[in-house]
């Protein structure tokens, strides 16, 4: 049905809207990586000695590591000496003390992206940390959060203001030796967000970090660390965009979540890095390590991700279920169009008794896109009565794309219950014809069908993000019926 395929192409092939470049002067390191670069980076950030040592250990280990080749993605070998490991707008050099001192061009950039930073203009009540290339430019609502005891600031600031917390938790979920890109990140990470929710506190607002890559030939290596103390609760969102450039750019982030007894973290991502053009030129390599550890009993973590951008997405937000009765959830929508590739999924490591995990993965492939779900469910010897439910659904549009599923299951505990369901479907001519016969335009019909396919994931997103996610898939949700 050629006409419908055209409609589908139009719908997903919409122009990348956030591809503009902000014209600011930047201080950037020359390309290249060695111990001096790491020392210089650490010096700019006035880091304590322990952190520099930690970075150097990571770097020395990284030098001994081989680039991993197991993922179902293809890209030319990356020359790590051709990347600049630090870039910051010049105006940030003196460290503006308040929003009034931040370069208006930077504030304007976030306005264009729909992320106004002026606090008085914000109605949604979402606190934002805005990361531009290698540095955080602003964090909103800091004072209000501080009253509740919540720490929400850039990683660099946390290193200065709360070194004891950083020392206590940094690298305890994803060590500086964990994997190739995690080790690289540990050596050269420049900024990111830090969140600390004290015992018994329910964070009074949604926290969000907005990542923007602007400078060319720069890698973005940020690190996020969230600690939820006993009985606390936080919902955290992250968004990502980048300009359109013909060269590929590397984004290698690490996210560590620590969840103590009875605490809960809900972590949502809408990833819309520049995906490259319709011929596969340019785009971000999004190689990220995200892991959460439920350290106490009844701890709960929920990863929700909507991945529509990046030339290559390669990540597995995972959960270590150490505490008894702890709960891990992973909800994912990954869309690949044109020549985009995604190899994503999760790892649920059950160690405690009565732990449970849920995995819902929705892959949408269009154009020449390749979409892979890769997941590991591992039940340890002591994880009595552990339960997992996995559902992987793939939706194909056209006949040039691919969907692949690699579920791995390892169990050492006979009382475990593991369920796995998988399906692959196409948007059928019958469905389109049926919707259009009812007066729904072809474009809206495709949106509605794709939206329906992703529904189980979208309902996990906070309202504002659900709307953005649906818009990203070209979906206009009229009213809130249904």
């Amino acid at each position: 049905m050629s006409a419908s395929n055209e409609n589908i192409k139009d719908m997903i092939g919409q122009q990348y809207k956030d591809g503009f470049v902000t014209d600011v002067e930047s201080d950037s390191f020359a390309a290249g990586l060695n111990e001096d670069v790491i020392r210089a980076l650490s010096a700019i950030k006035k880091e304590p000695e322990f952190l520099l040592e930690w970075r150097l250990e990571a770097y020395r280990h990284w030098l001994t590591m081989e680039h991993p080749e197991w993922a179902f993605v293809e890209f030319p070998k990356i020359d790590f000496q051709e990347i600049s490991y630090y870039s910051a707008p010049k105006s940030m050099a003196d460290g503006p003390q308040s929003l009034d001192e931040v370069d208006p061009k930077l504030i304007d950039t976030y306005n264009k992206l729909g992320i106004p930073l002026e606090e008085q203009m914000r109605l949604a009540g979402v606190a934002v940390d805005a990361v531009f290339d290698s540095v955080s430019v602003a964090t909103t609502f800091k004072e209000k959060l501080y009253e509740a005891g919540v720490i929400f600031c850039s990683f660099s600031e946390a290193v200065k203001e709360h070194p004891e917390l950083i020392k206590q938790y940094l690298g305890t979920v994803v060590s500086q030796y964990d994997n190739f890109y995690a080790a690289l990140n540990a050596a050269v990470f420049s900024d990111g967000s830090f969140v600390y929710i004290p015992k018994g506190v329910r964070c009074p607002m949604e926290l969000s970090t907005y990542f923007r890559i602007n400078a060319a030939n720069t890698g973005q290596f940020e690190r996020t660390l969230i600690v939820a103390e006993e009985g606390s609760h936080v919902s955290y969102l992250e968004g990502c965009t980048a300009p359109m450039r013909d060269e590929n750019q590397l984004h290698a982030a690490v996210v560590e979540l620590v969840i103590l007894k009875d605490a809960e973290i809900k972590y949502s991502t809408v990833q819309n890095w520049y995906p490259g053009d319709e011929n596969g030129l340019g785009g971000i390599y999004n190689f990220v390590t995200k892991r959460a550890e439920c350290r106490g009993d009844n701890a709960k973590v929920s990863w929700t991700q909507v991945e529509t951008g990046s030339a290559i997405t390669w990540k597995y937000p995972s959960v270590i279920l150490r505490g008894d009765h702890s709960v891990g959830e992973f909800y994912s929508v990954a869309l690949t169009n044109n020549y985009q590739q995604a190899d994503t999924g999760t790892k649920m490591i059950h160690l405690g008794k009565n732990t449970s995990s849920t995995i819902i993965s929705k892959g949408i492939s269009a154009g020449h896109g390749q979409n892979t779900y890769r997941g590991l469910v591992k039940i340890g010897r002591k994880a009595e009565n552990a339960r997992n439910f996995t559902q992987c659904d793939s939706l194909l549009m056209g006949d040039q794309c691919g969907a692949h599923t690699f579920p791995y299951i390892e169990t050492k505990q006979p009382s475990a219950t593991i369920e796995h369901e998988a399906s692959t479907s196409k948007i059928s001519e019958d469905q389109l014809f049926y919707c259009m016969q009812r007066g729904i335009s072809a474009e809206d019909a495709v949106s509605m069908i794709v939206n329906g396919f992703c529904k189980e994931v979208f309902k996990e997103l906070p309202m504002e993000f659900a709307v953005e996610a649906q818009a990203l898939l070209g979906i206009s949700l009229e009213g809130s019926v249904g």
Partner: protein
Amino acid sequence: MLKIENLHVRVEGKDILKGINLEINAGEVHAIMGPNGSGKSTLSYILAGREGYEITQGSISFHGKDLLEMSVEERAWAGVFLAFQYPVEVPGVSNIYMLKAALNGIRKHKGEPELDAMDFIASVKSKMKDLDMDEKFLYRAVNEGFSGGEKKRNEILQMSVLEPTLCVLDETDSGLDIDALKIVSDGINRLRDPARAFVLVTHYQRLLDYIKPDFVHVLANGKIVKSGGAELALELEDQGYSWLEDKKAS
């Protein structure tokens, strides 16, 4: 309202309709009957604008416009509704969402404002009551896991919400038990209106016990071989289709 002239249709190189002529006026109910493979369903799909059919000759005008030039959605906006023989499942999309999207699509095209959400729900619920449908169907995914009878009732619900002027019902009676047939027929009869026409495509006469047609046409081998009043359906019930097919052959 609808005028079909000398319509010839080919599917995958095979001639299915070979010169159909049919005129339908507002307020009329026409039954199209015929044996399997006679081209009945093809005719309904042609009216709705489904792809995959080659129109080699003839024309169809609807309210004075060239129907064949219109896209599927344009026909729906203009008032053509097809109740499907096999209603399609749309996973994850709730019935109420699709109904609202469809109605607003049509209203938008007419330049009317979107309906108020509360008024809309109230009106849909009262229509469901008439069709003996539980309100929970509003929040279930479109046709997913519905029984055959529930699917057919859902088609009639959509029809009553969208208020089309030309209702084409393709084998709506198939797969219905006698109680469901009665509920669906009552639903259709309630929609009869001087401004609205119906085309009932059916293999069996039993639907016509409940919905009395003004005209009955027998389709065989791609042609209308006989037209008459409601009494023709009873004749067919007695004698089957073969005498007409034979007649055509001679």
